[in-house]
C-alpha cells in the first residue's frame, strides 16, 4: 500500500478532485491544510519547491497538481 500525502487549501478545487479520486479508488491518504498549518506548508515547499496546491506525495514521489495520469502510474492503477 502506497503512502499518500496531499497538501491542500480548503478553496482548491483540484485538491477536491484529487481527494475524490483517491476515495473512488480506495486509496488511503493523509491531508495537510497548508492554508492553516505553517509547518506543513514549509514541508511542502521544501519537498516540492512549489508554492501552489495541490502537491501530492506518493511514496516520496512528488506530483504537482492533480495530474491523474502520473498518479495512476505511481499507484499502479489502470484506467478501465
Amino acid at each position, binding site marked *: 500500500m502506497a503512502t499518500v500525502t496531499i497538501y491542500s*487549501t*480548503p*478553496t*482548491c*478545487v*483540484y*485538491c*477536491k*478532485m484529487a481527494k475524490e479520486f483517491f476515495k473512488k479508488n480506495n486509496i488511503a491518504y493523509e491531508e495537510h491544510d*497548508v*492554508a492553516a498549518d505553517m509547518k506543513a*506548508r514549509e514541508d511542502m515547499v521544501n519537498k516540492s*519547491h*512549489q*508554492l*501552489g*496546491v495541490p502537491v501530492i506525495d506518493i511514496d516520496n514521489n512528488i506530483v*504537482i*497538481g492533480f495530474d*491523474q*495520469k502520473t498518479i495512476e502510474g505511481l499507484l499502479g492503477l489502470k*484506467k478501465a
Partner: protein
Amino acid sequence: MYDLIIIGGGPGGVAAGIYAARKKMKTALITDTFGGQSLVSNGIENWIGTKSISGFDLAKNLEEHLRAQTGIDIIDGDLVAGVVKKDDGTFSVTTKNSKTLETKYVLLTSGSRRKRLGVPGEDKFDGKGVVFCTTCDAPLFGGKTVAVVGGGNSALEGVEDLLQYASKIYLFVRSEVLRGDPVTQEKVKSHPSVQILWNSVIEEIKGETFVNGIKYKDVKTGESKDLPLDGVFVEIGLVPNSDFVKDLVKLDDFGHVIVDHKTQQASCPGIWAAGDVSDVLYDQNNISVGDAIKATLNIYDKIKKS
C-alpha cells in the same frame, strides 16, 4: 462513424450531449474535465434553478446528468489535438492520447483558457510565485506582498480573495479604467492594503527559487521600475480554445469561432460552435447551455433531412 462529436465538457458540451443522446444521435463527447471554467469558482449565484452552487458541485452535477444518458460515448481525461475534413465531407478527430474518431458533424463547445502575460519569468516561476488559480493558492500568500494583473472582474475577484491573506496588493491595470462590477470596484479601490498602478504593465518576473520581484513599466511615461514582491496573480482574461480548427473555420480577431447566431453553424459546413469558443456576445454558463442546445437541434434537423 459518429453522427456527432462534441468537443468540450462545460455546461454547453454537457447540454448538447444530453440532447443528442435523447435524440438517439450516435454521439461522442471528448473533454479533459467537466464543468468548464466555473470549476474553480467558489460560488455561482446565477445558475438558473439553484440559488448558490460551487463550481465543483456544478461540475459533478453536469457529469452525473450526462453519464445518466444511454448511447453516448464519453471520452474524458483527454483533449482534442486536431480536426481534419475529409474529401467526402466527414471529419476525422484526433486526441492528445492518439485516439482517432470519425464523425459526420462536429460541435465545438471547447470554451476558453486563461491568457498568459507572455513575459520572461512567467513560465519559470509558474507555481513558484506565479499563480493562475487565485482561489486555490491565495491562502499560501499570508502576510506577503503580491501583484494582481488585470482590470476586469476576475482580477477584482482575485484581489478580493487575497484581501484576507496578503499584507499588500498591487493591482496592475494596463489602462486608466477598471472594468468589472461597480460594487467590487469600490471595495477594492477603498481598501487600505490595495494600491492600484494605472497604465502599468509587467515586463519581467524575477526570482531565484521563488518570485522575489518584478520589473514593470509605466506606459505613459515609458519609465521602468523594479518592485520587490512574492507573488504574481495573472487574471488578464481568456483565449478561446479554437487552435485545432483554425484552418477549417473563420475566426474573429480574438480567435472566437464566427457562427450564424440563428443556428450556431460555423463557416465550414458540418461544424457548429456554442459558448465561449464562439463569437457569442456574453460568456455565460446559461447562455452556453441554450446555444449548445440550439446547435444540437439544428444538427438533428440536418441528420433527419439527409
